[in-house]
């Protein structure tokens, strides 16, 4: 090595040391998953049971009934015949093209992921809105969750829990939960301070303020967050299929490895159809819950 090598070449750590670090960390984690893997897995058992039950329910229920329920929800939320007809047509086409079962599997895991993301994300968002310290801690974590390539955090999850629905669920939630947290936080922070002051001045306690004022007024933002969460969950379907989540992702994966363009396209379009249904329903619901925002603004 020449005298100035540090100038042209980055003075990097000794290879042996680097290897040692990796070995220790990997070994440590492997040890951890060997010792606690089962305990953690059993912790997720109830969710797994629910996931399996819900998937079976959707697959085993008569397809006509499932379509009727979905269209019922769509019409109930949007009050739009056009959209309802579109939904019927796309669901019929999906079934006719042989993707009904996969679509039901995907629908079930997305529904569960979304519900869990909301159940976890909104309280975290509320916590963040209530404390600047919590915000400064949670924000970088959310940044990591959103930018870290999904494959990277799939590794430890798979090491810990093996291949299957639960690791897939965790991966999807990690990827999809940040929007609902961020927008809950933002929505609550944007509530007019004078309105909050008024609530305080009339003696409202923390819960009365939260459920009576903050959450209702943050709802447009929270709904936007939920909408984003659903879209991101759907985008993760293909990646999740790599660790054994059945559904529309697996045929897509197969199409990629075997260069079956049409198979990929059909299943991709089925995912798009699901996305559109979720999106329109959640947006229409958000809009209808904000009736007060209409009306004449005559200041």
């Amino acid at each position, binding site marked *: 090595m020449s005298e100035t090598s540090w100038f042209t070449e980055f003075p990097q750590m000794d290879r042996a040391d680097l290897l040692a670090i990796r070995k220790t960390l990997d070994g440590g984690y492997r040890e951890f998953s060997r010792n606690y893997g089962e305990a953690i897995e059993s912790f997720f058992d109830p969710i797994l049971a629910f996931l399996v039950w819900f998937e079976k329910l959707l697959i085993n229920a008569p397809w006509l009934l499932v379509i009727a329920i979905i269209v019922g929800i769509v019409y109930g939320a949007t009050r739009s015949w056009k959209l309802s007809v579109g939904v019927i047509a796309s669901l019929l086409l999906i079934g006719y093209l042989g993707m009904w079962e996969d679509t039901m599997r995907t629908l079930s895991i997305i529904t569960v992921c979304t519900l869990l993301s909301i159940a976890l994300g909104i309280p975290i968002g509320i916590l963040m809105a209530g404390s600047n310290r919590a915000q400064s801690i949670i924000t970088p974590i959310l940044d990591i969750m959103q930018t870290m390539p999904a494959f990277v955090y799939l590794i430890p999850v798979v090491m810990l829990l093996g291949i299957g629905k639960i690791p897939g669920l965790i991966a999807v939630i990690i990827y999809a939960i940040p929007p609902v947290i961020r927008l809950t936080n933002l929505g609550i922070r944007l509530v007019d301070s*004078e309105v909050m002051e008024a609530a305080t001045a009339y003696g409202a306690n923390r819960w009365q303020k939260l459920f009576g004022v903050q959450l209702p*007024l943050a709802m447009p933002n929270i709904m936007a967050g939920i909408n984003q969460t659903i879209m991101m969950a759907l985008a993760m379907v293909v990646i999740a299929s790599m660790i054994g989540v059945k559904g529309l992702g697996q045929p897509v994966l197969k199409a990629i490895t075997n260069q079956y363009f049409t198979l990929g396209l059909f299943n991709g379009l089925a995912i798009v159809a699901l996305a559109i249904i979720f999106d329109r329903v959640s947006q229409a619901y958000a809009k209808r819950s904000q009736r007060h925002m209409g009306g004449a603004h005559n200041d």
Partner: protein
Amino acid sequence: MTEPQIKIENLYKVFGSNPESVMDLVHDGIDKNKLLVDTGHTLGLKDINLSINPGEIFVIMGLSGSGKSTLIRHFNRLIDPTAGKLIIDGMNVMDLSQDELLEFRRHRISMVFQRFGLMPHKTIIENVSFGLAVQKIEKKERYEKALRWIDDVGLSGYEDQYPSQLSGGQQQRVGLARALCTDAEILLMDEAFSALDPLIRSEMQDQLIELQQKLNKTIIFITHDLDEALRLGDRIAILKDGEVVQVGEPQDILLNPADDYVEAFVKDVNRARALTVETVMKAPVNRITAETIGEALVQMRGFKSEYGYYVSDEGYQGVVKQETLETAVKDDLVGDDWHEKYYEDVPTVAPGDILEEVIPETLDNQVPLPVVNDEGELEGQLSRAQISKVLSNE
């Protein structure tokens, strides 16, 4: 004098990372700007002492940055002071526990906000009954009560609308109804009418005065508008840079401003509208009490005027002129006794009349107008010269 309902004693508010640490400097009288530069703390309120009587409208006025909005938020502890006491009905509000504070806010004190502070997602009736909902009162009962207040502020028929469907003035009526709906004795009004246009504002002022005559609440009213302060206030405190510079009745402030700051304030005020006859009139020096006309003439010559106000045991009788009396004596028409026909045709004014209303009569008459109270007694006399002196800002 009645006991004050609200007393503020030696109240200080310092904003910053560690307000306690700079209190010694503040007590030593450090300059506000120096405090900010040296320690990064802002002195919001400095040694405030106020006592507010039950049933009065107490106006706190100051320009923006004077600390008035900070001060009013201490009354219900939306802001906690750095030091000092707030005593309401003999109870130190600073000693209340969290739960007691909630109860205090629910039942004893209510507030009207500058930008209304209405809940945009609730209907008018839900907004008005908000204070009762917080108290967990049955829906039926609170709606009944809310409807009555909605009616009282003149918004019947709007109860199922949302705030965004109402105009600014209507929204503030909702704010007022909400504040009155909890039956709290103390009403805080933070620049309540400042966001309204002038016509609506004076309408709302009238409505407040009218309501207050019925309700007799203790009202603390914040404003930056001296005309509004003079119109509403039983007493006014003027706040400057976080300090109270003067407290007094409206005419005190107008006629005896405590310093240059207050004086600059009152310069542009429409005094004719703010002052009453009482505050401008002179003592009734031209009072004639003589029993005969002859004696009256002697008395009149004594105070070197050509007119006088004849007052008998039954109170004020009328204005007489020297000329008329002399003619009467000379012609010996009716003897030496008083007679109605000697009185001049001059109107009387009451001590409580607004100056503006009596200006025309004052100008129409040669002699100063007699000021006569409800009991018919002569209280003073009001001349053109006095009015012009007061109005010309001398």
